[in-house]
């Protein structure tokens, strides 16, 4: 029995994840003990304090140079982890802030007063009358965030799977809690849950096969087995395909993208914003880590497969985005296409600490995409008519006239999505394409550029509507409070900053782009 080591846990290096988890747990306690009237404000404070503390701890660890494989080989604290955690925390904070917006809808949040009540029932009306609200959404989001952080840094398949579930389950719940159009929201939640579980099952099956192939859940163990195989190649390829299915589902890549538009539309818009960036970031991070570290030696098998997925994702994403008339669906399909662009960099599988590497390109792209996404969905919550959010693109007409500053900020965000120079989106695209070209996939770059051109038309439609069309009666940009305006301002300014002065951030990412093995 002596060969079972005592479990070790490095508290300080893992403190950022702990801080988020502790804040989430305290949130549950608050739900239990604090009076109803105080809960909301306490939860918001907890979110802000928890995430800021996590960021501070992260920066402290970064300065002290804490790196290593932690928690008995389950989590790797390395350059990419630092960057991904930082990005997750920043985007998490910005998008969870939008949850707290109560000013635009008569002092109510975007969440149902009582999610358990039947839509249209008396109970619902009563809860609404009594101005109940679900302040549980904050701890739920924090739990999800902690799962994302672990998912992006896991170097062990079991940890990765647990993290995947921790990150997904709260999201299923949150998706079903919209105050308006509740049936749609509940349908979205169910769909997300069923399809998400299915994809988790694929991932689990892949995990089992990978274990069968290598006798290890650990990425280093798998890597060793790939280098000195005992079993046939077919087993490994099957395992990779099945795990890729699970990961690609979370990323929202074609052909596993069907849930994206429905869930994005059905979920409360603040939750959509949170999902759109954070889930994608964590899943791409986990994917890159698994494919580069565990099966990096097998890249000749998975590169063509992912290249095909990237190609289809880009093309289908932009073409379907073209035909959308609902802004949330449009952003949903656009997020599908962005998943494709990110995958282009994953396909390149380029490692370097001097020049643009795949990991740096992925991170920069997601950073630019993230700032734009957070701001875009915050903006969507603000454009309203008498019935609530006005999601029809046509009803966004002429907003440039009534509120040129917010419309201008949104235009910058759209230009960043489109990848027009002087915005972060352009540098992101450039990095992604450069990584793929140097990695030997120049044909994918050509396809990506063509897809980008179609994508421009998608975003241009929104700009044309806002600036060059006559206003629609009854639609206006609501006067949001700071919790919504800050994400929009930060998103727009960061998009411009990342486009004008990419040097410092890019250098940081390039220098920290090697996965610890």
């Amino acid at each position, binding site marked *: 029995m002596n060969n079972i080591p005592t479990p070790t846990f490095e508290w300080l290096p893992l403190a950022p994840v702990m801080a988020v988890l502790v804040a989430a747990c305290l949130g549950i306690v608050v739900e239990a003990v604090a009076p109803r009237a105080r809960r909301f404000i306490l939860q918001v404070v907890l979110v802000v304090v928890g995430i800021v503390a996590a960021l501070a701890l992260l920066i402290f660890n970064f300065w002290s140079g804490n790196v290593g494989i932690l928690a008995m080989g389950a989590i790797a604290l390395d350059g990419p982890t630092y960057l991904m955690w930082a990005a997750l925390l920043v985007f998490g904070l910005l998008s969870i802030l939008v949850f707290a917006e109560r000013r635009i809808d008569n002092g109510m949040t975007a969440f149902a007063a009582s999610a358990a009540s039947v839509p249209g029932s008396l109970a619902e009306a009563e809860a609404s009358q009594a101005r109940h609200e679900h302040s549980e959404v904050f701890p739920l989001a924090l739990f999800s965030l902690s799962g994302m952080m672990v998912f992006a840094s896991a170097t062990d398949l079991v940890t990765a799977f647990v993290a995947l579930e921790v990150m997904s389950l709260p999201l299923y719940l949150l998706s079903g809690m919209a105050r308006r159009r509740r049936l749609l929201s509940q349908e979205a939640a169910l769909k997300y849950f069923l399809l998400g579980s299915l994809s988790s099952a694929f991932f689990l099956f892949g995990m089992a096969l990978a274990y069968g192939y290598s006798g290890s859940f650990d990425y280093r163990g798998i890597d060793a087995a790939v280098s000195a195989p005992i079993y046939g190649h077919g087993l490994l390829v099957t395992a990779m395909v099945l795990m890729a299915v699970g990961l690609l589902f979370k990323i929202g890549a074609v052909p596993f993208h069907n849930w994206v538009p429905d869930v994005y539309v059905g979920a409360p818009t603040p939750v959509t914003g949170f999902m759109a960036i954070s889930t994608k970031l964590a899943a791409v991070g986990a994917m890159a880590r698994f494919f580069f570290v565990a099966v990096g030696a097998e890249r000749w098998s998975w590169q063509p497969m992912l290249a095909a997925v990237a190609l289809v994702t880009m093309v289908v994403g932009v073409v379907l985005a073209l035909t959308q008339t609902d802004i949330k669906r449009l952003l949903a399909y656009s997020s599908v296409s962005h998943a494709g662009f990110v995958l282009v960099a994953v396909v390149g599988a380029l490692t370097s600490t001097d020049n643009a590497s795949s990991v740096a390109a992925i991170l920069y792209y997601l950073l630019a995409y993230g700032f734009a996404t957070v701001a875009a969905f915050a903006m969507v919550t603000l454009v309203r008519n008498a019935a609530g959010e006005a999601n029809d693109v046509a009803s966004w007409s002429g907003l440039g006239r009534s509120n040129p500053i917010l419309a201008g900020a949104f235009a910058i965000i759209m230009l960043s999505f489109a990848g027009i120079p002087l915005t972060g989106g352009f540098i992101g695209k450039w990095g992604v394409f450069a990584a793929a070209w140097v990695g030997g996939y120049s044909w994918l770059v050509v396809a990506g*550029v063509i897809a980008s*051109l179609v994508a421009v038309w998608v975003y241009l439609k929104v700009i044309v509507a806002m600036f060059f069309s006559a206003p629609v009666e009854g639609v206006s940009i609501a006067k949001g409070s700071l919790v919504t305006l800050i994400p929009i301002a930060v998103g727009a300014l960061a998009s411009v900053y990342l486009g004008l002065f990419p040097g410092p951030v890019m250098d940081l990412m390039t220098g920290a782009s090697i996965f610890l093995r």
Partner: protein
Amino acid sequence: MTIPWLTLLGLVPLVGAGALLLPIKELARYLGMFFALLTAAVGVGVAVMHTSGVALAEQAAWMPAFGAWWALNLDGMGLVMVLLTVILVPVVLLAEWKLEGIGRWTPQAFVALVLLLESLSVYTFLAADVLLFYLFFEATLIPMYFLIGGFGGPQRARAATKFLLFSLAGGLVMLISVIGLYAYSLRIFGTPSYLLADLVKLALPTDVGRWLMLGFLIAFIVKAPMVPVHTWLPTATEQATPGTSVLLVGILDKIGTFGMIKFCLGLFPEASAWVAPAMVVLALISIIYGAVAAIGSSDLLRLIAYTSVSHFGFMVLGIYTFTSTGISGSIFYMLNHGFSTAALFLVVGMLIARRGSSRVSDFGGVDKATPVLSGFFLVAGLSGLALPGLSSFVSEFMVMAGTWSRQPVIAAISTLGTVLAAVYILLMYQRTMTGPVTEATATHFTADASFREKWVAAPLIAAVLLLGFVPSLALNVIAPTTQQTMSQIGISDPVAPLGEEAK
């Protein structure tokens, strides 16, 4: 510490554009004009420094991981284009002084966008780093998009979108080549570099060089614009205000021919020689098609756009016949065309402001009602048809002379463009200005050119005359660029065709 003059040159209008975000309403025009004139002053200062041999090049790290630098440099061609830009912008602001806004598209927004565009264009002409050039090349589209889409005719949103999509399509094709240059500079040098000075030394495999060159060339062909991808230009000028059209045709489109010389010929000499025959044919088609379409145009603004298509054909012809005379002529043509087209657009703008229509058939007998205005129109038109004594004659002659020394037949065909130019300009003048004073003319043309309008036309006509009589002013500046380009291509000037026969 040395003052970064080139950065400053682009920064002045940018600061101006920023200052115009303040709520100053009526003062906006004056503030804008102040910054435009300040930029012009800095531009002239830079020109003096350049000609007196002061080293102006700047280089600072921008994205080391990509090998991209904030690198600005000035050569003869760049200087000519920068001067054209800084002179045209105040003239345009003066010409659009009375512009009335539409809703939120206030005159203040117009001035701010023009200054932003000026800043980005200046950096485009100065960039000595391919990625930096690409960035500004594409970024100029944004203010231009809003200038067309925000101010102008009823179909302006459509025109703006058409413009943007054509330009972006070209630009994205170029992006492929830009990324390719990164990949190959990394492969060949070991470290990536986007500096022009480094890339010139890049020994690309022949087929790769040709593919990459094509990416650049397609973007520049769309930009220039050449037949068959010129269709966005007439649509855009028809809808945009004349001032916007001046900036579009006079400055932005020049990036096309500018880029052909600086990037296609400079970086890919072998590939450029390979593609030259096709480009010559394309140029001829542009010259003749543009001229014929101009003759057939019933709208004054479309007509001028088509004349420009024809003129851009001449510029491209001069570039791709690879002679010192031709290339110098092309660069000089870029400058002259800037002034003469600006004069045409702005004078036509004055006419349209009075008549309220841009259709040729709505005018007639204007020269009796407003003689000064029609005098401006005549001079501007004659400059467009390259009348001897006016600057465009010199450049057109140089292009043809250069072409003749290599391909006499092509040169002979291109003269057809000059003949047709006389037709479209004179027909336009005859139809609109001469003849009996129509009823509409009598009602609308009550006031001749105002003080402001005279000051708009005067500098342009003065420039056309000055460069017509003393072309050496510009040609001396251009000569070093021409020599450098010729040495990069590695083709020597042909002796006269007669001499070739002798050997």
